[in-house]
């Protein structure tokens, strides 16, 4: 189970000359639910953009298994990215298409399946995310949570080995967020996929995260990594603790903070 699925080697990200994060170095193992966390604006979503091939790193590289993503030419990169699925923050469904057409889009584009078979696959994917029967609805006719689940169905269309989530629980009520967390975990268990989540939702982080990195805005690099619960229990870095306890570590007594942290859990 502990084979590397995605490795980030010495990566520095920048917009123009403005460095967002430098010297990122971590490995995501197969079957992990890997959480990328940090305060708003620290570069979490930017990191995601680099992992899914939308933004080229200033230096360093991303490896899918053994293969480099950014040394590869365009065709190879597309092949590598074919095994990933991405759920964007707002679902990013194409508004001019029905849910069925949205989910069918990657299938018609990248496979040679017949129309009948694609229809069955689409119904199956929508049923997986609890949207059976909603094939002919347009995204605008659905609630935010449903749009997000439909986006997940589309991300899973090609049976990806790695699923990326950008702020999956943003804008959802706690119950829907919990259901989405459960869905993510059972998809990981049953599909054997690796999950990478960008989030700052503490409840989600502790509920489903198996490993995590913490990006810091001031030093512009990762300052902690490990299973989230272990970070809360063992980290001595005030920034990490403040984040994981919702700012409760303003008091200087670390053990008091930890107690508060456990109360949150």
């Amino acid at each position, binding site marked *: 189970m502990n084979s590397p699925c995605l490795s980030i080697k010495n990566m520095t990200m920048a917009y123009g000359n403005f460095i967002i994060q430098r010297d990122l170095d971590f490995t995501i193992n197969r079957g992990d639910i890997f959480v990328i966390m940090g305060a708003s604006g620290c570069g979490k979503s930017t990191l995601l953009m680099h992992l899914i091939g939308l933004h080229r790193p200033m230096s360093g590289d991303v490896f899918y298994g053994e293969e480099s993503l950014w040394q590869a030419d365009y065709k190879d990169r597309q092949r590598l990215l074919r095994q990933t699925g991405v759920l964007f923050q707002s679902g990013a469904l*194409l*508004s*001019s298409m029905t849910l069925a057409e949205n989910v069918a889009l990657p299938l018609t584009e990248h*496979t*040679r*399946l017949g129309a009948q*078979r694609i229809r*069955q*696959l689409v*119904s*199956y*994917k929508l*049923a*997986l995310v*609890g*949207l*059976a*029967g*909603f*094939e*002919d*609805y*347009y*995204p*605008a006719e659905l609630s935010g949570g449903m749009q997000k689940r439909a986006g997940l169905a589309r991300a899973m269309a090609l*049976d990806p080995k790695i699923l990326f989530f950008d702020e999956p629980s943003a804008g959802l009520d706690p119950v829907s967020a919990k259901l989405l967390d459960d*869905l993510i975990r*059972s*998809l990981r*268990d*049953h*599909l*054997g996929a690796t999950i990478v989540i960008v989030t700052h939702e503490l409840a989600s982080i502790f509920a489903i995260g198996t490993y995590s990195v913490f990006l810091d805005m001031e030093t512009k690099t990762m300052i902690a990594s490990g299973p989230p619960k272990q970070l809360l229990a063992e980290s001595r870095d005030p920034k990490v603790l403040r984040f994981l306890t919702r700012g409760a570590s303003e008091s200087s007594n670390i053990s008091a903070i930890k107690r508060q942290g456990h109360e949150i859990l």
Partner: protein
Amino acid sequence: MAVDNRPSNITVNCKAHLLEVDIIGDWLLDSQIPDLDLILAQFGDGTQFKKLVFSTESLGRWDSLLMTELIKLISYSEEKGISVDTKTLPSGIQGLLGLVFAVPERAGVRRQSIHISWLEIVGNSGLRLQSDVNALIVFIGNLTLSVFAFFRGKAHFRWVDLWRNVQDCGPSALPIITLISLLVGLILAFVGSVQLSLFGAQLYIADLVGLGMSREMGGLMTAVIMSGRTGAAYAAQLGTMQVNNEIDALETMGFDPMEFLVLPRVLALIFVMPLLCLYADLMGIIGGALVTVNFFEVSLVEYINRTINAIHMLDLSVGVFKCAVFGVLIALSGCMRGMQCGRSASEVGDATTSAVVTGIVFIVIADSLMTIICNRLGI
């Protein structure tokens, strides 16, 4: 390292009341699979079977393809009253099936395709036309109110916005207006010259171009360009603001979007259009002069003299007045479609398209009406 796919197969053993379904081989999206309907046919009418079990000892790799087939099989069996035992399936498949059947389809959710008769289509478009006209009248009413508010000095908007709009639809439009008007003047001169040079009256090309541009073509071409340039931009801007809830935000802050967004745009266009029209007239006349002086042995001074004698103040005013009216119509259609825009990306596109179409239709109708009226009044 490519692994060869093992051929997939599915067999059914019937043992008294028990159906044993054996799934063999790799079931991947690109593999050939047996036709499930043939298997289902072996179930007969299903009455003699009570229970269905799976055997998956020889199942290789699998993905969504196997899942869709299993779902079909299970749904069919349950329809026939056969109870399905999924406990012998791999745990991953059991889990996914659990998710699939966890949220049953809500009754009435699925959409039926409905047949609509042509009579209904005609009726619907009639009703839509009526509501469109209603919306137009309401919009014009609201706009009028904000214009009154503006003249009483009570309209809430930022002067910066007005000037930015003037900048956007005035000076920035000059290059395209220059090009198009110059070419239109050129074309008028060429078309006129064919007839006029037959009886040696090349000098009168100046009359034709001058009158044609100032009374009609200058304003009309400006209006068509501005409809495509600014009308579309207005619809897209306001439509995107609608999608992003920006217009709702303005309303909650106590701004009337009509005054805050629409008014500066309409005012800017009304202010700029007559100026653009004069500029277009001038460019058209220059275009005409280029042709006449170069090809028809008319000197530049003669051409200018002829043009000055041909165009009266009245002609220019008619052209400029028309263009101001077009300006109102363009701003109206652009802003109206933008404000009526729905809440999705595709609807912004629809709003922009219909803004340009509505704008040009309005322009042509208004132009014909005004030309007829001028003709009857002898202006």
